């Protein structure tokens, strides 16, 4: 609802207190807004930002799951002298060929929506954090005794920041192959690149530690998104927590399997 014009009482719209006036005003403003503008306007509200947070979160969860499953090609080793994960990478880049030019489908249907989801997620987080900080005002002067809020839920913004920083490193390391980050990088040779990168112990620790942040983040996110989107049914509510447990564990274990494979010399 748009802000009321000055002069109208804010609140006080109980039965018989100018309710008719309010209604008339509401209907005239509503006719003028297009459906698209209205839905877009929802993002201006905090609740709307939570919807955006949850929907972009779903896209990002789908991505981490897909990425994790894709990584498992590492364990298929080589076939006819070509590493299976190299073929998988090439498969992603040549999606839609020969109907579409190489990498077009990858960019338009995967990387672009993913980047958009990241940006929306980060913007909503940023602006909600600011609004929440403002809503607290003066802090409690004595220590709080939290009962339900857990480490994951209370560190969402920090685990989020860690994931973004890790992502930047990861893109420079194994996607773009920035010389300073991964001097052994050779385009298209996914297997050799990751074996080289994870062979450096500080990098190995970085990759392993980042999974902890990711795990906490998606564990809270995978349950919280149901609340934000209002997916609620007393019969199924307990499965929301179970889903979050299973999903985040599967993703973290799957991702960790690659550095572990390198450490155990299974991947070399």
């Amino acid at each position, binding site marked *: *609802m748009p802000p009321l014009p000055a002069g109208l009482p*804010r*609140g*006080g*719209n*109980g*039965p018989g207190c100018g*309710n008719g006036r309010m209604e008339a005003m*509401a209907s005239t403003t*509503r006719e003028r807004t297009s*459906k698209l503008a*209205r*839905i877009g306007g*929802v993002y201006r*509200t*905090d*609740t*709307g*930002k*939570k*919807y955006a947070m949850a929907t972009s979160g779903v896209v990002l969860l789908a991505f981490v799951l897909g990425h994790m499953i894709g990584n498992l090609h590492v364990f298929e080793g080589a076939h006819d002298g070509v590493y299976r994960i190299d073929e998988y990478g090439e498969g992603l880049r040549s999606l839609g060929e020969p109907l579409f030019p190489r990498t077009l489908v990858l960019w338009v249907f995967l990387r672009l929506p993913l980047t958009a989801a990241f940006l929306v997620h980060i913007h909503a987080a940023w602006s*909600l954090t600011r*609004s*929440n900080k*403002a*809503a*607290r*005002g*003066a*802090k*409690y*002067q*004595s*220590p*709080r*005794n*939290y*009962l*339900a*809020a*857990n480490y994951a*839920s*209370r560190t*969402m913004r920090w685990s989020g920041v860690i994931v973004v920083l890790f992502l930047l490193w990861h893109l420079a390391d194994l996607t773009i192959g920035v010389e300073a980050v991964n001097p052994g990088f050779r385009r298209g040779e996914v297997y050799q690149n990751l074996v080289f990168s994870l062979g450096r112990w500080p990098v190995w620790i970085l990759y392993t530690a980042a999974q902890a942040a990711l795990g906490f983040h998606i564990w*809270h996110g995978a*349950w*919280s998104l*149901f*609340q*934000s*989107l*209002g*997916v*609620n049914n*007393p019969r199924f*509510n307990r499965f929301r927590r179970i889903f979050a447990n299973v999903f985040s564990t599967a993703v973290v274990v799957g991702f960790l399997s690659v550095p572990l494979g390198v450490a155990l010399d299974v991947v070399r």
Partner: protein
Amino acid sequence: MDLTLRVWRQRGPLDEGGFETYQAAGVSGDMSFLELLDVVNEQLVTEGREPIAFDHDCREGICGSCGLMIDGRAHGPRASTATCQLHMREFSDGDTIVVEPWRAAAFPIIRDLVVDRTPFDRIIEAGGYISAPTGSAPEANLIPVPKGTSDTAMDAAACIGCAACVAACPNSAAHLFTAAKVVHLNLLPQGQPERWRRVERMVETMEEYFGSCTSHGECEKACPKDISLDNIAVMNRDYLQAKIRNR
């Protein structure tokens, strides 16, 4: 038992405020927390000092007036209990108890432990009512309501508006309170005429004052009336539907 109290004292909205320490000797376990404050206040008055100001009314857990942050927990250590129904047997001899007012930007401190909860009235004004014609009460079973629906609505209606949810929330969000009110009326047939307008107005009024929900679940644990976090999901869904329907 003998207790040490560290109570937040603040002379007015603009005063900086700070903790002051008081001794309470010979406290009975059968006293309520508010009675403890009464006893301390009598001592203070006898000594010629200002008594501690705190909100209270019914003292039987149904009015929502009282509410203190006791040892970092809204309404103190006992679950599903308002401050007035918290008995001193929950504490043990020699304990130091820290008492603070609710803290939220929307709830400025008026004095000591008393905060101004007017924003809750604003949320109710925005839609927490039904436009039923007045007159004699209609026959109770004139409008059939399924048992499950009336039970869920009744559970939501149990909210006494004490604001412990806001006090406990790390984001100072009032979602549990607002959701309880929205869900209570939106579920029942009597609430249908204003259903979509109600959720829009109440949510948007709430957002003028309070933070957003990050599903910590602190509010649910602090709530003396066990209002469920599920209500928030229902409110979020109704708000989205209201925006799409544009009624």
